[in-house]
């Protein structure tokens, strides 16, 4: 059995997208302590805002990406103010169900505005160059670079800034953090901004790699959840490691299983991860 390096390359691209997305989800979970089903639809919203700016208004892709990321950061804060803020004291399970309602709303709003079919960004179509037998596209390279930049930025945020340190503290123990004088409600605002922006970026990457569809985020939720849980829910570096692990495993798995079933790899990783290492790869899950 020879492993085609093409699969590894594809895996790195998919892994970058999953890592970025899982990072946003796990940050939100760390502070707010619930699994946000609507997260996939946040991703789709980011992708569609960028689509509107890029393909419909005809502005360059860079502007569109900024609009999508910024728009979704604002959108996440808006959803929090309208919905989640009123459920702050509810149990994680109630919040999870509330987020189903939010997901329904957002996904169908997207369908109502942009229609149910798939769309593409307005990017020049070129033949994909290849290097050492690996075919790659400009979009794929940009996805990997953007994800590395984002991961570095989040690392600096969490390690070097006061907000980030407070976030990590609140993720560990929210009550104790409050006792130490941190305004946790303010922190919630920051985490929605960061989480929403990351979701937007993840969605745009996904749209660049494949297609922009209303359910694009929702259908990617499963590998994202798998990465998040595999890495230990609430643990940012675990989410990144889990994302790359699942992305690469999923793409490489086509060597041994039919490619229609590569998605099953995420499910298997999810179940095995939960049974064997419920605290995540690094044992730093926040619960």
């Amino acid at each position: 059995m020879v492993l085609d390096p093409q699969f590894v390359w594809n895996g790195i691209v998919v892994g970058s997208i999953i890592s970025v997305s899982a990072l946003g989800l796990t940050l939100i979970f760390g502070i707010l302590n619930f699994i946000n089903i609507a997260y996939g639809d946040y991703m789709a919203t980011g992708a569609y805002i960028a689509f509107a700016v890029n393909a419909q208004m005809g502005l360059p892709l860079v502007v569109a990406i900024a609009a999508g990321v910024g728009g979704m950061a604002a959108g996440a804060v808006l959803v929090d103010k309208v919905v989640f803020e009123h459920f702050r004291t509810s149990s994680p399970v109630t919040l999870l169900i509330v987020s189903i309602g939010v997901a329904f709303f957002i996904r169908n709003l997207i369908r109502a505005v942009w229609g149910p079919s798939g769309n593409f960004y307005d990017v020049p179509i070129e033949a994909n160059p290849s290097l050492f037998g690996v075919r790659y596209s400009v979009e794929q390279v940009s996805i990997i670079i953007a994800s590395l930049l984002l991961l570095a930025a989040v690392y600096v945020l969490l390690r070097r800034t006061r907000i980030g340190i407070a976030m990590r503290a609140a993720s560990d123990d929210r009550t104790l953090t409050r006792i130490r004088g941190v305004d946790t409600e303010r922190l919630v605002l920051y985490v929605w901004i960061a989480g929403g922006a990351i979701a937007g970026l993840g969605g745009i990457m996904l749209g660049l790699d494949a297609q922009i569809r209303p359910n694009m985020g929702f259908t990617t939720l499963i590998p994202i959840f798998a990465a998040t849980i595999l890495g230990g829910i609430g643990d940012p570096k675990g989410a990144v490691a889990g994302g790359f692990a699942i992305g690469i495993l999923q793409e490489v798995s086509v060597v041994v299983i039919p490619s229609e079933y590569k998605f099953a790899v995420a499910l298997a990783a999810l179940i095995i991860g939960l049974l064997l290492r419920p605290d995540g790869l690094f044992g730093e899950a926040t619960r």
Partner: protein
Amino acid sequence: MALLDLLLVVGIIAGVYSLLAIGMNIHWGDTGLLNFAHAAFFAVGAYTSAILTTPVLETGLLAERVVGFDLPVVAGIAAGTVLAAGLGFVIATTSVRLEGDYLAMVTLSSAELVRLVIHNEAWLTTGAQTLKNIPRPLESTVTTLPVSYDLFYFLLVWGLVAVTYLLFERMSSGPFGRVLHAIRENDDVALALGKDVSRFKLKSFAIGAGVAGLAGSLWAHYVYAISPVMFLPSLTFLIWTAVILGGAGSYAGAILGAVVIVVLRQVTRFIPGSVPFADQLPYIRLMFVGVVLVVVLYYRPEGLLGNAQRLQAGTSEGE
């Protein structure tokens, strides 16, 4: 009369959804298990029944189904129910020990895997194409009678809903149900009282999945033709909304919730196409379902017929 016929169709769909909601209610309302795989149980019931009761047909253009048994409809419905229960058992064995929202993730992923299998294994299910010509029970007999077939099917479905309702109501207030309720409130207590908690959860999961399978069989035999897109996770979420709306823990509430959701979705079909945003109506309808779910959870978390004392089943711990 045309309107009556339409009402019968809505009523049949509402009956099928009621069965789904009953199945969900034993999971969530009685046992506090977050089951996000309901669409998969529904699908397994539908496909099992369809495959067992149709002959091998060479209709597929792209893929050919090579399995078909041409058995009586009753056998199909029974097998669909049992197989869905079996699937519920299998999914639950991998995950029933997991905490609430982890269970939700695993069941959601498992359901998607089931849909993937149905989509890809065309030799068994005709894959992405529709599986057609599913027979309707007693069709030749009913057409000789002076009643419409829809009326017969309506009575059949609601008869089954009534039987299931009575059975589950009884089970829920009996010794088995009391253990489930104890598990919902606090499974450590149930464990300390010597109950095999995992076993009870497994049973609850299998029973609820079986009812969803029954609903799937009834659906398949009514609509003639089924395809994988009928079994998306959004179906699961709709049933969740129905159960929450009706009141978790109350079987009458589950049925009421299902009827309300179906009526909400179907009634808007009568709005003429000339109104503004007519093209967007199907989506606006589902947006409205999302709003209903959030609003109910905020203003009336116990649902329409739920017990405010118990509040939301399973969520009383923790906060």
